């Protein structure tokens, strides 16, 4: 039985990661033809081409700027929103608020995209501007918000509601109480919400496609290659992105386990002091 479950685990991970490994392998492929099926020797040519390709780099720059701004704004707004929803008086009000929040997540992207585009077109015409960076960022913030709220709210529910009051009893101003007591409690939720918003924003194609005007993000650029063929430069770029995310994850995990270890040590010391 143990062996079976082990094999099963290996298979699952294989299915999950095999495509990524193939992609990484072919980003080093040295074939003149842009072959993605025949491996013919190791080279860094696609990386060289990638860093000389203004169009891809510009699309990447747009994507990253939008993702960072949208994730940051959505995280702040979403956290505030979650706290607000949590402190609503009355079960029905809270329920209604959560339902309204969850609607955009189950709404088909196409509908969201088209409706936003129509709204933006009308609004922008009134202002006399075109769609572009601004509308893209607004759209991304909008679809990231529910996910942030969704990941922050459980942390708030887990928290003892009296903590905030207790902090104030011990001489905190409300602002101090929030930053020193509530925020550390819900921080993990905020971080995972921010990460989710960031990846969603980088990935999004449909909503961006409708609200982008003449701005181009990376997914739109990659989709537009489908009449010719998708250049291996994209493999190289994906590899770079994958490596960056992997390093980030490792750093986050190491620092977290480090802080956890520190906290455990501190607690042990405190217990020792009590015993003395």
């Amino acid at each position, binding site marked *: 039985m143990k062996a079976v479950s082990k094999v099963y685990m290996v298979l699952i991970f294989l299915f999950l990661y095999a495509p990524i490994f193939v992609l990484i392998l072919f980003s080093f492929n040295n074939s003149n033809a842009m072959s993605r*099926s025949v491996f013919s020797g190791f080279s860094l040519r696609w990386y060289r081409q990638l860093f000389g390709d203004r169009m891809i780099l510009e699309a990447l720059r747009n994507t990253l700027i939008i993702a960072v701004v949208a994730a940051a704004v959505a995280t702040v707004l979403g956290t505030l929103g979650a706290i607000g929803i949590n402190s609503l008086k009355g079960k029905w009000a809270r329920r209604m608020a959560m339902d309204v929040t969850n609607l955009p997540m189950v709404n088909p992207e196409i509908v969201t995209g088209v409706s936003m585009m129509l709204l933006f077109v009308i609004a922008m015409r009134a202002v006399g501007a075109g769609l572009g960076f601004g509308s893209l960022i607004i759209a991304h913030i909008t679809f990231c918000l529910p996910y942030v709220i969704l990941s922050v709210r459980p942390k708030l529910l887990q928290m003892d509601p009296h903590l905030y009051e207790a902090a104030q009893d011990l001489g905190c101003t409300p602002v101090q109480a929030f930053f020193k007591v509530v925020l550390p409690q819900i921080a993990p939720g905020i971080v995972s919400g921010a990460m989710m918003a960031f990846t969603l924003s980088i990935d999004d194609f449909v909503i961006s496609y409708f609200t982008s005007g003449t701005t181009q993000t990376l997914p739109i650029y990659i989709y*537009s290659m489908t009449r010719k063929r998708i250049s291996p430069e994209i493999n190289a770029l994906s590899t770079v992105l994958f490596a960056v995310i992997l390093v980030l994850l490792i750093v986050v995990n190491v620092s977290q386990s480090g802080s956890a270890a520190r906290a455990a040590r501190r607690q042990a010391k405190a217990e020792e002091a009590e015993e003395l």
Partner: protein
Amino acid sequence: MKKRICSFLLALLVACSSAAPAFASAGSNSSRALAGTTIHVYNWGEYISKGTDGSMDVNAEFTRRTGIQVDYTTFDTNESLYSKLAGGGAQYDVIVPSDYMINKLIKQNMLEKLDYQNIPNYQYIDKQYRNLSYDPKGTYSVPYTWGTVGILYNKKYVKKEETTSWDILWDKKYAGKILMFDNPRDAFGIAQKKLGISYNTTDSNEWEAAAALLKQQKPLVQSYVMDQIFDKMDSGEAWVAPYYAGDGESLSRENPNIGFTIPTKQGTNFFVDALCVPKGCQNKAAAEAYINFLCSPEVSAANMQTIGYSTPETAARKLLPKEMAQSMICYPPQSILDKAEVFTNLPDKTLTLIDELWTEVKMGGSGDTLTLIFVLCAFLAVYVGIVIYKKQKRKKEME
């Protein structure tokens, strides 16, 4: 599929694009007069020389010579280009639609008339690519590339003689090794040529007949793809596939096992992608300067070297490397071109029919949406019923 629905939705949402009057171009001859302005160009993906591997970076070169900045973005199908234009909110200065889409845009009054005074390089465009059926008077468009459709085949398994007719795509010998276009106009086109009918028929029975032929072919087709054709043919996963001549040529040059033939028996599709200026363009003179720049033989040659398609300029063709300039695939003999037919725009009724038929072909059998919706509703009703029943039960228990 998703995007096709969008295009359709947007076509319904008649959002008139902003009717700002275009500034009359002064037709200034000084090329630096427009320096500092920006034009928005919308082209096919991977459809221009971008300076990799020592080629010309066309957009940078244009900016260097004129001082005009190029904001360059890309699309993947004519339909998505149309939905972007029709939706408003995106104002482009230069676009590159294909023949039938140009025709549609002209009919819907979505293109600006070009001032050929500002495009002196138009002289290099050969006579046979001017004033074609989609733009009969040659007032709206300047050809950028052209090509035909042919058959890619794996020389190990398929004989060249077999590829002179579209029938090979229906040959049971190659069941599971055949690929097909993943867009309705091209896929139906092949069936229509096999039946000997025109691409641009408005007779619904003829479209039905072509659809029947495609349905008959479906069990033999490995998949309906576009860009994956390269990989699947390259690796030997598939043996026969129709594709555009420019790409067929470059793939057969890269891989000695792959051949490419333009079927001579029933005729083929002749397509042109041309440069146009959409209505409402704010910087027409700069847009025309860009079109003019793309038409200069050296730039056209540099682009063709990257893209692999055919140039409409003999002067540019002379600048190409020998194997490209003399390619029988990119520049087929006149006898093949005489039998080739161009797509034109079709009435809305026919387009809706094509969409329906195409969905049927790809779904296999008739995709009865109504039944599906009904079944889903039934499920939902049952679910809601169960929830209510449980609540009632709980209430009773509480009491």
